[in-house]
């Protein structure tokens, strides 16, 4: 594999061809915030948190899907990018009903963590307080649409890793919603294997284990990468 050398925030970085800017930055110890991205799932570049500036390009590029190239000069934390990230987080907070104090994921929530990272101490945009339902029809898990940020990790993990394709995105724009099966109650969808991977990768408290109370959801989405690694190792074993 040939090597590409580039500069990320003033650091010289050498990465293999085909590596993304996000991977290269993380290898070099440069943190770029993400939400929809999760190692082990196909990238969708939808949350726009990982946008970076690349010298010579007038457009911001999502680090999660932009491959490194020779001589690339990347800036990941300019004032403009910081402002954009804060606005993205504000847009997410004001779009749903994110009440940390009563949330199962309080203290273990990626949205909450990113809000802290970007310094969002308050929302400058008005809260929209949408009327959203909660689906408790599944025996073991629940889905609270109020906390969903539509990152589509659950959709991808169920399709790409579990192979069950229980989840889909329905409707458009502000009316977008995660649906189970053909917009059925989750518990009524036979395709669900009850594996819980969707709960594991959910960055917020939208998907949760029934019985978890405030701050009791201790999922670690990065476990997915370990799980996939283990699966690969077993498949490759003689």
């Amino acid at each position, binding site marked *: 594999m040939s090597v590409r050398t580039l500069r990320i925030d003033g650091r010289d970085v050498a990465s293999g061809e085909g590596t993304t800017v996000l991977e290269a930055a993380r290898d070099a110890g440069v943190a770029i915030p993400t939400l929809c991205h999760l190692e082990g799932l196909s990238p969708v*570049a*939808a949350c726009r948190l990982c*946008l970076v500036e690349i010298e010579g390009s007038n457009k911001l590029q999502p680090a999660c*899907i932009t491959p490194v190239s020779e001589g690339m000069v990347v800036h990941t934390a300019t004032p403009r990018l910081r402002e*954009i990230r804060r606005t993205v987080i504000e847009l997410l907070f004001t779009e749903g009903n994110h009440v940390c104090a009563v949330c199962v994921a309080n203290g273990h929530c990626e949205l909450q963590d990113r809000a802290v990272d970007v310094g969002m101490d308050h929302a400058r945009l*008005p809260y929209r307080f949408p009327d959203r339902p909660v689906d408790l029809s599944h025996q073991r898990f629940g889905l609270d649409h109020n906390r969903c940020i539509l990152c589509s990790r659950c959709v991808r993990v169920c399709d790409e890793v579990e192979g069950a394709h229980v989840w889909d995105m329905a409707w*458009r*724009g*502000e009316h977008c919603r995660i649906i189970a099966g053909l917009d059925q109650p989750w518990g009524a969808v036979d395709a669900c294997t009850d594996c819980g991977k969707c709960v594991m990768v959910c960055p917020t408290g939208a998907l949760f284990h029934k019985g978890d109370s405030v701050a009791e959801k201790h999922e670690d989405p990065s476990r997915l990468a370990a799980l996939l690694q283990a699966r690969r190792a077993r498949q490759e074993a003689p």
Partner: protein
Amino acid sequence: MNGLRCCASAGCLARGSGALIGALETAISRAELGDRIQLRPVGCLGPCSQGPLLALDPDGDLYAGVGPQDAETLVAALARRLHQGSDQATPLEWAPARGERLDLRAPFFQRQRRIVLEHCGLIDPTDLEQAIAVGAYGQLERVLQGWSPERVLTELQRSGLRGRGGAGYPTGLKWATVARMPGARKVVVCNADEGDPGAFMDRAVLEGDPHRVLEGMAIAAYAVGADHGFIYIRAEYALAIERLRLAIDQAVRRGRLGPALFGTGFGFSVELRVGAGAYVCGEETALIASIEGKRGTPRPRPPYPAERGVGGKPTLINNVETLANVAPILREGADWFAAIGTAGSAGTKVFSLTGHVRRGGLVEVPMGTSLTTVVLEMGEGAPEGSAVKAVQTGGPSGGCVPADRLDTPLDYESLQALGTIMGSGGMVVLDQSTDMVALAAYFMAFCREESCGKCVPCRAGTVQLHGLLERILAGSASRADLDQLETLGAMVMDTSLCGLGQSAPKPMLSTLRYFRGDYLARLEAP
């Protein structure tokens, strides 16, 4: 022989041309003149706002506002003239009861240069033989029987044709890129998902001269090495869909589409794909997903469709009007085409002229024609007692040209410099009564509704922007809200995933640029 051409496109049909055609048929057969008067339903005749429109041959006269009640008197007048034995010499002594004979010396007609629409309004779009009689598929045959694909590519590149869908990407370059891609199977897609409010250019082309577009697709396929094509058309265009279906069937039966065309080894088939009401499916990656039967959401580019399109195959996507330009370019030559229009924007552009304008309809003018010519001369300006305030071009992705800049030539770069775009050709004239804040709110509501919801800035940002505009409209916004509107607008433009979000704030930012006073007047007193 006397001929009557009656517009049977959606605009005139909505104004009653269906009943007119029926009444004329009855009157002609009652007068037993079926063999001496040929009645043809045709495509758009131009001044749609004055329909139903009827053209008389061989005189070339055009009548507006003709109704079924006029059929008897018209046929009687034609009969009188026929009995006198003079078909053409004497002008017809007839006028519609509530309509008029249009003065074809008016700028609306004189200033046009019809290339894309050259046969629109002349031929019956449901009759392949009439299309062939005026040259349809002639260029395809010529190309297949003696031209190499490279020669077609060179000709297209030399012509300077740029994409008519909005962005103005050089068509020849796009074709050459797809042609260079490896892969045995390639795809040609015609984007007929025309969705900008006030835009109906492509609909008119498809309803009036569908074979022109099919021929353009087939030539494109030959040039890039494709064997299959799709036309992606919005479901709302029921008549265009019907005529395209018929046109494809006829072309296949007549050996103009299908395997081994004109005795060569080249074959090309076309499939129609009907959209399901999503504006975003006009964006090429969403369009591809929709053709594949997936949810119509855009994905990041690269890879561009030229590299990975429908079913992963290299795909050429062109707009309807772009493809309709192909046959005349090959017929008359690249130099001929390049000489029309301006240096950077060759050829003509079809515009749908609507809004606060006395004479609305479909016009085709050379690139570089000024907005003054199109709006004030051809369209004859705003209605009595008012004046033009601005002209909106490019729909929800475009912006406004204020009245004092109407001398701007219509070419890609000049419009961009004013903060708007050529777009696909929608041109909405706005008079002094227009509230520019309400206009901005209208377009933002459109984008809010049409956002696919995939990326955060477009999904949630358009909602917040629309909310801020509503607040300004309600008179309860402050100076800080206006600042936030501009900051958030810039953020949504910079960060959205696809063209819809990246341009959604444009109509708003454009009105802020030229009509800031309309906004300031509505702010709460500090």
